[in-house]
């Protein structure tokens, strides 16, 4: 950017913590998370909505943070991969990814886990087909997806 653009106030909640900062009006949520808040778990893959590496929850809905302006989040709640851990313990989805070998390079993993989290919040006992549909917007170059689906399936509660 050549011209200096005046920054604007942004107040929102990230992983349960109230934040207030000044950002350029064109900054994306992804840029603010990674660069201003140093929450680098959320990844930049394509910047165009194709890969899902930047997936976070915005007011409980999974979205591509590369396609959201930070300003749009004013007053809203964001949950990133860093917010899943509790009391120093990995979240059950994270544990399942480790256990099932659903991670190779790991670049897609935070996005995959956030998409899986959104699915399991809405539907605690998804079928394999429902899991595949829920992860449709997340690309993985390494695993071939089978182990990712198995990891999520291992968390699906019986009785669907």
């Amino acid at each position, binding site marked *: 950017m050549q011209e200096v653009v005046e920054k604007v106030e942004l107040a929102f909640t990230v992983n349960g913590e109230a934040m207030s900062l000044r950002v350029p009006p064109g900054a994306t949520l992804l840029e603010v998370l990674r660069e201003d808040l140093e929450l680098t778990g959320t990844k930049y893959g394509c910047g165009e909505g194709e890969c899902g590496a930047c997936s976070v929850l*915005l007011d409980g809905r999974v*979205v591509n943070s590369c396609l959201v302006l930070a300003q749009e989040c004013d007053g809203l709640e964001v949950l990133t991969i860093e917010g899943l851990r509790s009391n120093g313990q990995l979240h059950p989805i994270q544990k399942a990814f480790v256990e099932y070998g659903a991670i190779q390079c790991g670049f897609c993993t935070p996005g995959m886990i956030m998409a899986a989290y959104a699915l399991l919040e809405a539907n605690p006992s998804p079928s394999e087909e429902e899991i595949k549909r829920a992860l449709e*917007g*997340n690309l993985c170059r390494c695993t071939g997806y089978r182990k990712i689906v198995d990891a999520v399936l291992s968390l699906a509660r019986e009785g669907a």
Partner: protein
Amino acid sequence: MPAIKKYLAPKALEDLIRDASTEGATILAGGTDLLPRWSRGLTPVAEVVIDIKRVAGLNGVSRVNGEICIGACTPVCDIAKDPTIRKEAPVLAEAAGRIACPQIRNRATLGGNLCNASPAADTAIPLILLEAVVDLASATTDGTTVREVPITEFFRGPGATVLAPGEILTRVRFKPPAGGMFAAWDKFGTRPAMEIAVASVGVALKIEAGKASWARIGYGSVAPVPLRGRAAEAELVGKPLTPQTIGKCAAAARDQIEPITDVRASAAYRREIVGVMLRRMLERAGSGRKG
């Protein structure tokens, strides 16, 4: 990062309508078309961006004077799940639920899908079948004026609509179709996930005494705009759904459309697939299925 200079998020429709008439302002709904266009340099980044998602009354499905009204800012995932839409206009729920992936569907709005005016906009064909109209609001010297435009007249070409500068699509409306109608919509893509349609086809039919008494047909991704299939409709109305009628309809469809060759498919392939999709849907209708 898009070099936006000013971001506005009005809460009242009057404020939005006034702000929208600012020179050089761009409307932002879900941003799923706009942000990729900005980052690829396909659309110049706007100096002033007006986020319309906080405007009261633009989000959600309601029933007003016997019509189903959908606010422009309703995310397509909500349309796919809405009980009224699923029951009364299942073709629209189906199309909304097959856009992209959860991340996109959670942001993408109905108004954005239409105003972006892609010939592949998935919600457009079901809205043609439903004979929907859109309400377009703009500023006048002493307030706001709203005009109503049938969906078939809204699109003008790839990326072009009848929207005047500063005009806002506020809602989409249609009368719930009478029960007992056949209605189907499908899209064909090169892979089952995240598919922008190579072609899409929709059919709505009333069948009385073994004959089609009313028909609406639509095609996506095969013309500069989402297209109403008037030629195929004309072959159908007043006739029984025999293989001959169906064959003539499919031929009329192949003749009417104006597909192009692009990265997803050739024009010849699109012509072929539209004929096949339409034939299969009409065969299903003829066999007495509902959709």
